[in-house]
């Protein structure tokens, strides 16, 4: 029975941009007027049927939506439990769910008359999606990317450059996603008049967490319809990986008020949750704090200094998480569990060999959660994974981890 009315978990955020304790607008004054303008522009756009129609048109003809819901037959037989389904976001144009959000935000940027786009990226999937929409809409694009990530996601750096974006490596800190976001915020403060910041995940100051969720919630909405059509009911479990959490919130949102559907978020467990600063599982291993415009779970030390975290996956290597996930964690509506680098690598190989689908390392974390879950479920039950991205960008780094001969 679906939950409705005031007990709905889908009402957030409130007018202050809060999901319970989490979210908010913790930004410098320079950005505050812009954030308020952005919120107003987004409200106007949301109420404009032409805006929705344009997104719909692009989703169909540019992104290639709806993405298929695929029954993974061999994987199901191998795991020996629940039926395993894949929501194929990796088949979207640019190879991940990130394009859903970028198209929405670039249209908003144009409505606001902005002439320059900036973005941060970890794995490069969001950077590629941003560079893509900027090429299509003829806007200059600057992507901030940690120097460590530039090295481990080189194919995506080339793609961004070919698409006409300028990639600025960030050497501060550990040179990963957190540092890229700091640098993007510094650029934004400096170029606030002309520049629109396309944040890639469902985090940051209000209204970003809400806006990114809305642009990504097409994943769960489609999934729900497709599964109903295939099986005549809702799935017993839905799984997604969580870094900042944009594919996860987009997948979960349609199911939040369906208590019979269990929801699982796979966090980056890195070397193991027990290893000090050796993981990026902010909810399992962090505590609430304020960073990058919102209050949320953060990896931090006893003095409130933010830790770097670690994950084999550049896209999950972030010490925070979107505020709506923090809220769903506290309310226990979603179960968040850490997946280690090793478990993700095993899942990566399994899907590749069993189904002929090379997943992104990020999505492989979600798959590892499915591998734990499916065998404990009945054969007439179903678990759906949001396969958020494809793994082409990861073949080199996975090959290295597996000790493959890189010159053969």
């Amino acid at each position, binding site marked *: 029975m679906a939950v409705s009315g005031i007990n709905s978990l889908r009402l957030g955020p409130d007018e*202050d941009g809060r999901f319970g304790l989490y979210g*908010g*607008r*913790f*930004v*410098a*004054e*320079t*950005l*505050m*007027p*812009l954030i308020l303008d952005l919120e107003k522009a987004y409200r106007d756009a949301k109420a404009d049927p032409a805006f929705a129609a344009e997104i719909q048109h692009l989703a169909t003809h540019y992104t290639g939506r709806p993405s298929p819901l695929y029954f993974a037959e061999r994987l199901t037989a191998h795991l020996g439990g629940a039926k395993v389904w894949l929501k194929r976001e990796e088949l979207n144009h640019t190879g991940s769910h990130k394009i859903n959000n970028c198209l929405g935000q670039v249209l908003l940027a144009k409505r606001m008359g902005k002439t320059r786009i900036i973005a941060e990226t970890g794995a490069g999937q969001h950077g590629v999606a941003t560079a893509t929409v900027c090429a299509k809409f003829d806007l200059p694009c600057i992507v901030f990317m940690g120097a460590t990530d530039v090295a481990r996601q080189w194919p995506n750096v080339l793609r961004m450059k070919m698409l006409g974006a300028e990639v600025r490596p960030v050497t*501060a*800190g550990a040179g990963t996603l*957190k540092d890229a976001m*700091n640098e993007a*915020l*510094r650029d934004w*403060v*400096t*170029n*606030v*008049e002309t520049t629109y910041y396309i944040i890639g995940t469902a985090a940051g100051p209000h209204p970003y967490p809400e806006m990114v969720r809305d642009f990504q919630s097409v994943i769960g909405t489609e999934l729900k319809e497709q599964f109903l059509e295939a099986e005549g009911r809702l799935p017993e479990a839905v799984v997604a990986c969580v870094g900042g959490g944009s594919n996860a919130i987009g997948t979960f949102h349609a199911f939040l008020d369906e208590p019979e559907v269990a929801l699982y978020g796979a966090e980056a467990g890195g070397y193991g949750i027990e290893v000090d600063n050796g993981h990026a599982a902010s909810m399992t291993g962090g505590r609430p*704090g*304020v*960073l*990058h*415009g919102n*209050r949320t779970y*953060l990896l*931090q030390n*006893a*003095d*409130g*200094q*933010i830790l770097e975290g670690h994950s084999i996956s550049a896209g999950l290597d972030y010490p925070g998480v979107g505020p709506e996930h923090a809220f769903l964690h506290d309310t226990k509506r979603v179960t968040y569990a850490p997946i280690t680098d090793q478990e993700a690598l095993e899942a990566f190989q399994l899907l590749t060999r069993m189904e002929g689908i090379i997943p992104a390392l990020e999505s492989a974390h979600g798959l590892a959660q499915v591998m734990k879950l499916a065998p404990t479920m009945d054969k007439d039950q179903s678990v759906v994974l949001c396969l958020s991205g494809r793994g082409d960008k990861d073949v080199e780094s996975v090959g290295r981890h597996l000790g493959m001969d890189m010159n053969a």
Partner: protein
Amino acid sequence: MNRIPARFAACAAANRPALVTFVMAGDPDPATSQAILDGLPAAGADVIELGMPFSDPMADGVAIQMAGRRALDAGQTLQQTLSMVESFRKTDGETPIILMGYYNPIYIFGVDAFVAAAKAAGVDGLIIVDLPAEEDEELCVPALAAGINFIRLTTPTTDDRRLPAVLKNTSGFVYYVSMTGITGAAIKSRAAVADAVRRIKSHTDLPVAVGFGIKTAADAAEFGRHADGIVVGTVLVDAVGNSLDNGKATGGTVGAVRDIVTDLASGVRLARV
């Protein structure tokens, strides 16, 4: 009277702007940082901003980022920063001290515990970069209740429509950020700064200090003509950085900061001559 309004009033009586100096607590090490802090009033600083280092200083340029990094690497904690103020107060009961930084370390310390400890240590004001007026309930309201000034940044993007909301809970002085940008960048339009100061003063009786991008005694004299105070930070933390040998303080570190402050103090005294 809180030390901040008293000091601005004294500078106004002397017909000159106040020199507000920023240094990073714990940079490059606790002892040297204490010596730098203790030496600021004699060198001519009227008001002191003491930076609370943070791992992710999103509004700061490279110089202050590096200063914070040096302090954290040397083990600086928020408790130690409060202890520095306490130590300073043993010999100086007059010079206002404002703690400046980001919210998370305070949030983790605990807002009530922090406000009480700051008051007890002799802190007069707070500037918290990532707490805009919209988040006043977090720290601004408790700080004001304890008698600690909450100094707000206003920027070129804070228009007349928004200014009243920003000024509502501001006390001590108003900090006008001279540009849209990060600390230490170049000021784009000098004439616009004077206009902005006039505009803010039409909304408030509080003193208005100008900061971000002020580097020399000549800058201090120029921007101090219309403003009630000028804020200097990046050149001071750069002086610390440039004085180091392999990351360690040298015999010249404390003096390097003192000399620049002395020079800037001469600048503010020429502002209205």
